[in-house]
C-alpha cells in the first residue's frame, strides 16, 4: 500500500480504448482515450490494489491483408513515486503486474482483452519494491 507521496503510473494506449481504472473499490478513471498516446494517472494514497479494464471494444482491430497489424490495447510502461522512476522493465520485474483473463492469471503489463478481463497490480512503495528485490 502506498501510504505517502504521489504514486503515478504511465500507460500507453492505442485505437481509442475505453479505459476504466479502479483503486481498490474506487473508480478513478472511466474515459475513452482517443487515438493512440500516453497518459499518466495518479493513484491515490492508501490504495492497496489497482485494476485496469478496457470496458468496450469497438473497431478494436486493424487488419491488413488478413493480418492483424494493430489492436486496441493499454500497456503500463512506467511508474513514479517519491523520486524513484521505474521504466517498463523495472515495473514488470518489481511490481509484478498480471492479467486476469477467463480463469487464468499471467504476468504481464499489457491488456488487449475487454471487460471483464483486467490488468492488476498491488501498490507498493517503489522503494520497498527495490529493497525487496535486492534482498530476496
Amino acid at each position, binding site marked *: 500500500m502506498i501510504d505517502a507521496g504521489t504514486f503515478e503510473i504511465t500507460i500507453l494506449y492505442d485505437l481509442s480504448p475505453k479505459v476504466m481504472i479502479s483503486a481498490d473499490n474506487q473508480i478513478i478513471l472511466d474515459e475513452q482515450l482517443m487515438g493512440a498516446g500516453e497518459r499518466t494517472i495518479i493513484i491515490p494514497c492508501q490504495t492497496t490494489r489497482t485494476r485496469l479494464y478496457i470496458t468496450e471494444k469497438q473497431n478494436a482491430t486493424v487488419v491488413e491483408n488478413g493480418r492483424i497489424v494493430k489492436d486496441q490495447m493499454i500497456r503500463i510502461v512506467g511508474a513514479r513515486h517519491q523520486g*524513484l522512476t521505474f521504466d517498463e522493465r523495472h515495473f514488470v520485474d518489481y511490481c509484478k503486474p498480471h492479467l486476469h483473463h477467463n480463469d487464468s492469471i499471467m504476468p504481464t503489463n499489457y491488456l488487449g482483452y475487454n471487460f471483464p478481463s483486467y490488468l492488476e497490480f498491488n501498490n507498493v512503495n517503489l522503494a520497498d519494491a527495490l529493497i525487496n528485490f535486492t*534482498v530476496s
Partner: protein
Amino acid sequence: MTIWLLQLPRLDDTFSWGIKEIEHILVDLKQSVHIIDINHAITDHFHDTPHWNTIEDYGIVGQAPIPIHQVRDVIDSMIKPIQPGDVVLSCVFTVESRSWFTMVHSMLRQLHGTDIILGAGGQGCRAPGESGFTSEWADWTLSLGLSDIMFLGETVTTMRDWVEGGYTARGKQYHQHTEFPPLGHLPHSLLQDKTTRRHDIPNYYHYDYRHQDERGVKVHFTQGCVKQCTFCDVWHTWPQFVMREPREVIEEIDHYHRSGNLSHISFPDNTINASNSKFLELLQRFDEWRHTNHRQDLTWSSQFAVKPQSQFTDEMFELIARTRGHISVGFDHVSDRVLAHMKKLYGWQDIQSFIARCSQHDVKISVAIWLVGYPTETDQDFEEYTKLEPVLAKPNTILSHNVSVTTINRNSPLESMVTIDHGQPNDWHNDTVDKQTRWQRKAILDQMIRQHNPSYMLDRSTQVRSSR
C-alpha cells in the same frame, strides 16, 4: 544544508580511503559535512550474531535472506539526522556494497523524495574493466532516481566544480588525474573531531586481533600499476600510474605524527614497489625519520608486487622488516604456465625465493593471495599447487592466505576467452573451467592451506568469522 558522507558496509570494519579525502575536499570548501558510518553500525550490531554470515553473503551476492527488518531499523536510526534539503554522498567502495547502496538510497527516497540530493562515488561504481564515463551501474541508478549524480574516477576537481556550482550538476562526472592532485594533508580538525566519528583517527583494524589498539591513517605514495596482469582491474581503473616524491610522503607522515595518536600507516597503493629505487628511497627516508622522532613503534602496511628475485636487494627486505612493514602479496598462482599467461613477469622460483627471503629477514606477509579457476588453468596446472605444501611446511612469515576464484573483467584480455553474461558474472565458463570447477578447486586449496595454517585462514577479510 549539510552534506552527509555515508560509509556503506564493505568487506571489513574500515573506512574507505576515499571518504576521508572527500571530507577533506568539502571542509576545504567550507561545507558542513558529517560522516555516517553505516558499515560500522551494521558490523557492531550483527558481527557476533548468527545473522552475520548471511549479512556478509548479502554484500557479496546482492540477494540473500537477511534479517531485513532489523537491518532497516539500524539504517533508519543512522539516517535519522538527514533532513530535507541536505546532500547525501555514498561511498561505494566495492561492487559488493552496491546492494547496500540500493537499500539505503531507497530508504532515503522513501523519507525525503526529491527533497534531498543523492550522489555516490567510489571504485564500486564501475564494474572491473569499465573506464572513463562507462558505468552501466551508474546509468541504472541515475535512470531509477536512486542517485542524482555519480562521481567516477577522481573527485578532486569534479567535487569542487559540483560544490562551487551550487550542487546543480547531474549525471555522471568523470576525471582522471595524471599527477597526484594537490590535496595537501588532512587538517588537524579532521583528525581530532570526536563528535561524529567513532575514533580520533579511524581504527582500521578494530576486529583484527593483530592491530586492536592501533590508530592509522592512509597515506598515498603511488596510484595505479605499471603491470597489466590479465585478470586485474587496476590498470583499467587507474590507467595513469602516478607516484609522489618519497620526501613528500615523509612530510605527510610527519604531519600526522605531530597531530597525535598515530600508530599505523596504511598505504592504499596497489604497487608500492613499482619503482625499486623510489621504494627503497621511501624506506630509507622513513627509517631515518623514525629514529629522529623516536617512532620505532610505528607500523605500516601495503600491497606489494613480487618481481624476479634478482630485482630485490637484501637491503629492501631489511628495511621493510626494520620499519615494521606488513605486506600483502598477490602471488596469484604457482604454475609457470599460468603465471606467464597472467603476465605476472615472474615464476614459481621467484615466489619461492621471495617467501624464503621474507622468512630470513622476518618480513611479515599479512595476506598471501592465490587464484584458482583461471581460464587457462588445466587440471595439471591446478595440481601444481601441491608445490606449496613443502614451502608452507617450513617456518614462514605468511600470517594468512586468501584463495579467490578468478573473475573476468570487461575489456580485459580474458573476456574474449570465455563465455560470460556480465549480468551473472560469476557464471562464466570456457572449455577449460566452469563455475563448479572453480569452487571445487577453491575448496581443495583452502583445505590444503588450512592444514598448514589453521589459525589464520581468512574466508573473507574478517578474522573472527574464520575462527567459527
